[in-house]
């Protein structure tokens, strides 16, 4: 009994090809079933008139796209999505870099600082955004209280009620939440720079900024690019902050594509239109991802 079993095992382990597929197939099957199939379904929905009340599938061609393109709220959301993503990413990369430099340094109380700094990322985003909702309250905001007491403002700011302030608030909360993750990824990048490169530069008399721009940033550029890619995807498709903080308001001034797709598709029950709006995200994401991956590859070769 033991001899054939032993032989069979030998044969399987010799045949890497079979083993490779055997190991890979559960993940592939899973992804095809729960990402691939829904993805195709999403495309089908966008070409149909499926609604929450009437789930029967009728082909309508590009009608949903024509209707969303005719809707000013769609263009508003598209513009907001770009503003939201671009401004957030810029701030996240800059603050993340600064924070990463601090967190890898050796100082007293480092553990406590790390713990406090990581809180925004480890808290479920819906809960931390609710905390912000209360901080930005139109009447009882402590920020307004401080500004009022300091004599800087006479009446409250109404953070979430004024279009530009609402957008700034949404971006601030999003940046606040993602900077810790960016910092952790960049710490990983900084720690991967060989120590002797840094030390050699120090010995050669290179100052802080020179080391920063000629060694640290070029060597960590792939990691910065990757954390920017992750962050951009996250930001581009995220709607939690918008949903909890402003629900897209005031009058759709902070609406982004993801939240608009949700309001249309789930709360408004117009699944066809919701799918069309959501689908609009994908080609944009794909282009951004390919561009960044290419840039990273070029940097690694160069």
């Amino acid at each position, binding site marked *: 009994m033991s001899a054939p079993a032993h032989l069979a095992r030998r044969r399987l382990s010799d045949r890497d090809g079979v083993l490779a597929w055997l190991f890979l197939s559960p993940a592939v099957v899973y992804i095809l079933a729960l990402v691939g199939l829904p993805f195709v379904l*999403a495309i089908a929905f966008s070409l149909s008139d499926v609604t929450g009340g009437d789930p029967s599938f009728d082909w309508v061609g590009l009608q949903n796209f024509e209707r969303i393109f005719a809707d000013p709220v769609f263009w508003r959301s598209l513009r907001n999505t770009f503003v939201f993503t671009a401004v957030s990413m810029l701030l996240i990369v800059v603050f993340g870099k600064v924070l990463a430099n601090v967190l890898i340094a050796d100082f007293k109380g480092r553990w406590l600082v790390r713990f406090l700094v990581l809180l925004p990322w480890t808290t479920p985003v*819906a809960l931390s955004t609710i905390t912000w*909702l209360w901080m930005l309250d139109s009447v009882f905001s402590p920020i307004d209280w401080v500004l009022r007491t300091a004599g800087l403002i006479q009446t409250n700011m109404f953070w979430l009620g004024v279009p530009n302030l609402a957008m700034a608030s949404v971006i601030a909360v999003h940046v606040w939440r993602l900077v810790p993750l960016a910092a952790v990824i960049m710490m990983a990048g900084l*720690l991967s720079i060989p120590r002797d490169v840094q030390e050699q530069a120090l010995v050669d008399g290179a100052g802080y900024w020179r080391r920063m721009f000629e060694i640290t940033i070029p060597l960590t550029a792939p990691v910065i690019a990757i954390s920017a890619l992750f962050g951009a995807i996250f930001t581009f498709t995220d709607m939690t902050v918008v949903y909890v903080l402003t629900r897209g308001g005031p009058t759709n001034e902070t609406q982004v594509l993801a939240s608009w797709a949700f309001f249309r598709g*789930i709360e408004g029950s117009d699944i066809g239109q919701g799918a069309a709006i959501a689908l609009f995200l994908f080609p944009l994401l794909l282009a951004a991802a390919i561009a960044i991956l290419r840039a990273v590859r070029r940097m690694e070769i160069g």
Partner: protein
Amino acid sequence: MDGLVVTDADRRRYARRHRAGRIALYAVAVVSALAAAGPFVWAAITTFKQDRDLYRRRNNPFVFNETPTNDHIDLLFNRTGFATFAWNTLWVGVLVVLITLALSLPAAYSLARLDRPWGGRMGIAIFFVYLVPPTLLFLSLSRLVVALGLQDSTWSLVVIYPTITVPVSVWLLIGFLKTIPKDIEEQAMVDGYSRLGAMLRVVAPLLFPGLVAVVVFAFTLTASEFIYALAFISPSAEKVISTGVPTELVRGDVFFWQSLQASAVLVAVPIALVFNLFLDRFIAGFTQGAVKG
């Protein structure tokens, strides 16, 4: 500095620069800690405030103008489903982590170790799966969830969440596996282990930091997820923290602010503590995953 004479003036200059650097470091550390944790401090103060204290514009919001009270924590635990939500979040998270490991570990091993000609392309394909966002899929997935008979059940999340965590985990683990020399495994196989034996006895222990990174990442992603939880589940008893707390403590226009703030702090602190324990391993896992993947 070879061949140069270091003068006292040089030394003083370096000492001064060093001191300035330390001061800047502490300043940035303190400012970042305040910016990051400030809202939680504010939340903690709010939690213990009486309504009379909370809703008076002229009160200094940072101090207790009235005696602090425990009523709102009592409300959270005894008159809302907070404990149920926390429990649901925990077991969904644990199951998702287990499924993620079971699916992504063999897949990563296959792509990183068993040199197939399609390995590289498959790796990139899996990375691109990560680009397909929840906002694009939730409409069709909610149909699928209904078809599977899982609507309004926490199990729908257990089934769906690995679609977010598996691609990231495979990608992280591939990079990590690439850093473990192949010879170690081949030597073990020469010594009489089967491939599976070598994988479990030799590779798995070396992979430990990478596994920790995956566990932490998968759990935080799962606990934080909002869109699927919101779209799939409506009865209270099946909700997770992200969706349960807002729906139970926001009734129409009435916000139970103190209890809401309490829940944020109560969830944030334990997760952050655990996360900090693993931070260094997490970073180690991420370095190998991100840089060499």
